[in-house]
């Protein structure tokens, strides 16, 4: 390693070995989210600040049980270690091992060590191992493995500073191999390895395997033989170094909790209770900061209008950029709360139980137990929900989950449903007890849920995947969540959302602003004049005149032109050009519907005075029938349209980010819009 380059250290370990805790301990808040192009799961990098040295770069690789990758995220690990062309090729490897599970954890360690990098073994002495009285003979372990061995407690931070010092000093040479691979590969592969000019035979073998230079059957039997031999040696080693105290009472804690949490009846009741709590907090707690942000954005916008000289730039700033930023910021409370819950469930070990409880049910429709959390999160917002699909190992199942999650009715649809229901559904009781309006709202949520499940089933049928679905999953012991880790997760998700999705949302809101502020011809320029002359006989307040002006402007804008253009297309669904405008503007975000309607029906645009919007909308007459335009069939058709259509730029941005391609967001838009169109058409015909 040259002196002028900062040290790059990779963290490797089994899932649940405390790797993330260690990463957080080493880097604190100096983390950034990095992508490997073409690979679907992120690795994280962070800087470890050290006084007197250039900060060392720490790479947190996804948890894996073996170098023989069985899923996409495990593949990241092998890629970093085997592919010489990879960016951030590490100078030093730190393998963290959960001491309460020494045998299984050492498999990965011995594989990694044999690659020949300078390697340090870190034993994570969880509270559990200490309580269990497991003692490990460190000196013997160091001697047998030929590497430096350190102990830490990743949760409390014990031993971290000693580890940091070792990392900076360490130039640990690592010559002695744990398993001589040449002895087991057989003649043919040995020759191939010799042709491969690498000093390390094990690295050479993995390079060959990655290039598919060894035929499948040979590779498989070789892998099986190697793993078995490694385990045999490890077993012997572990018996020697571990002072096995009587292990009675071991993990009794976890067993007891599992008796309740995976119980036939209580298991599901508790799960539903937790779900309910999550929904409740997303809808109840998040509204406070969301209202505050909404208010704050409106104020800033108004304030800018007062202090800046009038002009195009000011308009763009106050009507385009500021609300655009607001549209991003407003989702942050929901994202933060949702991920706080997800992080706590993950940290405590409960998430694996959710997978365990739900797997059988979800598998029937092409999803896995791991799809449950994203689908639930979708009720709040598809953006964090799609980000939460990362822990689905199976690519096809993950893709299906990403694809169907936006069909779940999110919180942005709620204001649209509310206003339309109030407008067209009569306030009546069914059978004397069931509120008809409430029933329609519930049905809309159910329709979304079943559409998601149905689509998943459809995709399961048409998508092919060579990757095999399996659920071979460790159920970790229950632990108290570390609040620091929870905090870091929240911060990371909020950051990822704000910077990635945020950029696109802001860009689109600027485009929309241009479309709705400018129009063909001179009409928009003379809007004020026109409205003033035509309304001069009416006794209107300044506010009412202003509203009429903005309505007039919107009616003659490019957005309206688009509305008129698409009118023939949406007419079979019972929509007119005004709804066309709303559909165009709410392509970026559904909740824009209400605002657009408010402007179009020239009423106070910032008010949540729904009665006024509604009375205006009710007055709209159908030119052919002379009756109210907003009839039950038309209202239902519109609601169904909003339930299904992909009208959320932020979701598309996140899908692009998570799938690393435009193919999926594109297909999703086509599919969901097609479904929306078809369903709306059927509903409109059926009820007319």
């Amino acid at each position, binding site marked *: 390693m040259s002196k002028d380059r900062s040290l790059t250290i990779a963290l490797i370990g089994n899932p649940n070995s405390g790797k993330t805790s260690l990463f957080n301990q080493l880097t604190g808040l100096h983390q950034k989210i990095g992508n490997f192009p073409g690979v679907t799961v992120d690795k994280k990098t962070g800087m470890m600040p050290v006084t007197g040295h250039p900060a060392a770069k720490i790479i947190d690789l996804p948890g894996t049980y073996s170098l023989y990758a069985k899923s996409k995220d495990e593949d990241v690990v092998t890629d970093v270690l085997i592919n010489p062309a990879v960016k951030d090729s590490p100078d030093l490897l730190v393998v963290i091992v959960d001491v309460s599970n020494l045998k299984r954890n050492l498999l990965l360690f011995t594989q990694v060590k044999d690659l020949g990098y300078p390697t340090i073994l870190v034993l994570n002495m969880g509270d559990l191992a200490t309580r269990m009285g497991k003692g490990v003979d460190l000196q013997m372990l160091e001697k047998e493995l030929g590497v430096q061995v350190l102990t830490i407690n990743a949760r409390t931070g014990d031993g971290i500073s000693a580890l940091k010092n070792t990392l900076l000093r360490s130039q640990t040479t690592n010559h002695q191999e744990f398993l001589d691979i040449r002895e087991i590969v057989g003649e043919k592969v040995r020759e191939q390895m010799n042709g491969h000019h690498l000093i390390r035979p094990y690295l050479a073998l993995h390079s060959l395997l990655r290039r598919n230079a060894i035929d499948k059957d040979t590779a498989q039997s070789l892998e099986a033989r190697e793993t078995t031999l490694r385990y045999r040696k490890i077993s012997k080693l572990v018996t020697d170094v571990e002072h096995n105290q009587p292990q009675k009472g071991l993990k009794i804690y976890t067993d007891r909790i599992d008796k309740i949490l995976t119980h036939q009846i209580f*298991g599901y009741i508790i799960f539903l209770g937790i779900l309910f709590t999550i929904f409740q907090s997303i809808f109840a707690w998040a509204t406070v900061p969301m209202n505050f942000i909404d208010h704050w954005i409106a104020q800033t916008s108004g304030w800018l209008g007062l202090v800046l000289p009038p002009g195009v730039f000011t308009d763009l700033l106050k009507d385009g950029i500021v609300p655009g930023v607001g549209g991003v910021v407003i989702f942050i409370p929901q994202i933060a709360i949702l991920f706080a819950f997800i992080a706590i469930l993950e940290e405590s070990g409960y998430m694996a139980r959710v997978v365990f409880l739900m797997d059988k049910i979800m598998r029937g429709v092409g999803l896995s137990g791991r799809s449950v959390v994203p689908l639930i999160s979708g009720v709040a917002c598809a953006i964090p929900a799609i980000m939460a699909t990362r822990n689905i190992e199976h690519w096809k199942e993950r893709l299906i989950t990403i694809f169907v999650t936006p069909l779940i009715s999110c919180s942005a649809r709620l204001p649209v449903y509310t206003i339309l229901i109030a407008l067209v559904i009569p306030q009546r009781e069914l059978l004397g007890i069931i509120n008809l309006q409430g029933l329609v709202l519930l049905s809309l949520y159910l329709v979304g849920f079943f559409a998601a499940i149905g689509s998943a089933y459809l995709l399961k049928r048409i998508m092919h995947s060579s990757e095999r679905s399996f659920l071979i999953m460790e159920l970790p*012991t229950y632990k108290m969540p570390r609040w620091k880790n929870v905090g870091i997760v929240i911060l990371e998700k909020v950051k990822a959302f704000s910077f990635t999705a945020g950029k696109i949302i802001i860009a689109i809101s600027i485009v929309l602003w241009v479309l709705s502020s400018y129009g063909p011809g001179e009409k928009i320029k003379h809007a004020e004049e026109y409205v003033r002359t035509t309304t001069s006989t009416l006794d209107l307040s300044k506010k009412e005149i202003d509203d009429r002006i903005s309505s007039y402007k919107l009616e003659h804008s490019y957005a309206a032109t688009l509305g008129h253009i698409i009118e023939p297309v949406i007419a079979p669904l019972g929509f007119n050009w005004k709804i066309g405008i709303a559909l165009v503007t709410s392509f970026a975000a559904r909740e824009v519907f209400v605002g657009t309607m408010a402007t179009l029906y020239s009423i106070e645009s910032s008010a949540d005075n729904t009665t006024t919007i509604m009375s205006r909308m009710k007055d709209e007459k159908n030119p052919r029938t002379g009756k109210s335009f907003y009839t039950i069939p038309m209202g239902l058709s519109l609601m169904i349209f909003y339930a299904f259509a992909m009208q959320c730029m932020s979701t598309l941005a996140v899908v692009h980010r998570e799938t690393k391609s435009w193919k999926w967001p594109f297909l999703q838009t086509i599919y969901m819009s097609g479904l929306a169109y078809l369903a709306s058409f059927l509903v409109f015909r059926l009820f007319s």
Partner: protein
Amino acid sequence: MTKPRTLAQLKPGEQGEICCFKDDKLALKLLDMGCLPGTRVEMKFHAPLGDPICFSVDGYRLCLRKEEASSVSLVE
């Protein structure tokens, strides 16, 4: 001759010793997880719908789908 029993047939609390794997692909993953021929496995409990199943392997809890568990046969 009766077919050898598989992991999927163990009852809660019952133990068995792994003999061999019927599925090569799954075998590799199971080997990674420490399920080797000769390893003693105890069935702990199953999910409410009977699938997946939780086993105790080398002191940790491993959950397998029923289908996967039935690809592992036991020593008689």
